[in-house]
């Protein structure tokens, strides 16, 4: 187990810790003037602006760090929601008997092959205005500014649970046959008690692995929506919307390559680190089980 955890997984954990620190502490360190528009538009990377400036002369490094806060927040919260739904769904499907199991997993199959992101896209854009109106009339000011973010997190959590459900269900099916579960049943423990006391604790490892793998999926989904201009809206930005700006500012006339390169690097390194960490954890878990 230790052998698989050296090398790339350690690097990945370091990259993630560094990214977290940068995103959390970075905006506190940089001067406030970096946040404001300045005449210095589309400036190439320099010592004062290591990642250059954008079309309004704002510091790109600061925008990447603030965008990272949103991207990571959406990723972690969305993945946590998907973990909750997926675990509950998988547990019930795996333990409730053949008929229920078949029906529940058939639904997962159907959902897998439907363009879920498209429905979520429509849902977010349709529901956002409703929520805004409700928030305004109820006087929930915190919700008015970030209603879109809240919907985004909820709805991405709602579509990314399928893999988690499949894995948890498969694991529950094997755990159910173990002798200690049979013993508990003979001792007269109830269905829910067995799930909670004997099956769920043994799922903790695999749940943690798939949580690590779900975070990058949610981050990608969020970036997809924001890239199309249908996710996070200004003044908030995420890595996806920064990438959209970057893609719009590369053409043969004004080659503002830094607008594309640095957000890409931030997103890519985070995704790569999360995927390789999840992979390493999965491998160490399966070698332990064998």
């Amino acid at each position: 187990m230790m052998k698989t955890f050296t090398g790339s997984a350690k690097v990945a954990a370091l990259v993630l810790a560094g990214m977290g620190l940068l995103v959390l502490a970075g905006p506190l360190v940089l001067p406030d003037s970096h946040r404001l528009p300045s005449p210095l538009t589309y400036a190439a990377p320099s010592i004062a602006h290591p990642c250059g400036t954008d079309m309004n002369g704002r510091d790109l490094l600061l925008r990447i760090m603030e965008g990272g806060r949103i991207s990571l927040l959406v990723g972690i919260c969305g993945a946590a929601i998907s973990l909750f739904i997926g675990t509950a769904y998988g547990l019930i499907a795996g333990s409730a008997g053949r008929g229920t199991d078949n029906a529940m997993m058939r639904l997962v199959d159907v959902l897998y092959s439907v363009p879920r992101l498209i429905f979520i896209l429509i849902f977010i854009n349709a529901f956002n205005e409703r929520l805004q109106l409700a928030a305004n009339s109820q006087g929930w000011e915190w919700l008015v500014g970030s209603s879109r973010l809240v919907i985004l997190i909820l709805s991405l959590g709602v579509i990314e649970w399928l893999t988690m459900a499949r894995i948890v269900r498969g694991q529950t099916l094997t755990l159910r046959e173990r002798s200690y579960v049979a013993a508990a049943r003979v001792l007269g423990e109830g269905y829910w008690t067995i799930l909670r006391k004997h099956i769920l604790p043994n799922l903790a490892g695999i749940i943690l692995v798939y949580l690590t793998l779900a975070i990058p999926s949610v981050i990608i989904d969020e970036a997809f929506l924001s890239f199309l201009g249908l996710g996070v809206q200004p003044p908030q930005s995420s890595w996806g919307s920064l990438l959209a700006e970057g893609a719009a500012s590369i053409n043969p006339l004004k080659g503002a390559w830094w607008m594309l390169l640095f957000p890409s690097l931030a997103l890519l390194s985070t995704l790569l680190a999360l995927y390789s960490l999840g992979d390493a954890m999965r491998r160490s878990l399966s070698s332990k089980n064998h």
Partner: protein
Amino acid sequence: MLRRLASLPVVLLCVVTITFFLMRLSPGGPFDSERKLPAAIEKQLLAKYKLDGTLLEQYSGYLKDLLHGDLRLSTKYRNRSVNEILAQTLPVTLTLGATALLIAITAGVWLGAFAAARPGTVGEGGALAAMLLAISLPSFVLGPLLILIFSIKLAWLPVGGWGTPIQLLLPAVTLAIPYAAVIARLLHDSLRETLAEDFVRTARAKGLTERAVVYRHALRVAILPVVSYLGPLAANLLTGSIVVETIFHIPGAGGFFVNSILNRDGFLLGGVVIVYCVLLMLFNLLVDLSYRFLDRRIRE
């Protein structure tokens, strides 16, 4: 199988219902603009686009029109029907998607088999690292980067547009690469498992070369997880093509989809979603059939 076939209309009805109510959920209508329209004109417009009556009447009317194959009129692109718009744009999207599918399968199977045939070598390590990198490269990162490198710095390929095969190359590759990596990993894992089985040992004992063992015997069995991934893959490709069409300025259905959300163009939105879902269901049925066929042949 017959039960699968019978469940198709049910799933489709769910899709239509969800789409219809989602698009009628937003508080504003398609004709809300800065200037308030006179009541008579607005009433006439609503009647022309069949947006009058109660929600339930509108829903049943829409279902009836759909059964006749009529996807109704676009409220933004006046006087164009959704059928017309889709007839023009869908072939573009499908060409892009089919090309990407082909690239993803070919490259994925090749890379997966390449890695699995060389256990414990630098070749396998390199291939696995490349797969991990490619999975972390979503199309909205890869596309602009490829344009920056190949179209702007090197000026080898066109920046975007549609019509010639060379314009298809960059978008199709952009769309395909992450999924090629997913296929490669699936195949690698299942090949490694298959290569440990008894019939492979028999094949080796017969004195077959390692190449023949991997490509002729093991691959046939190990390909099954890849076949069952084709359904979700097609859904991902259709979703991904929305963003690729935007990046490369391709006049496909994806661009109209995004605009229809921004313009509250309900029937265009519904038309795209419904047609996408029908296509995916048919594709899934095909995949299911071929899976059963392959699976049975292997068992025999």
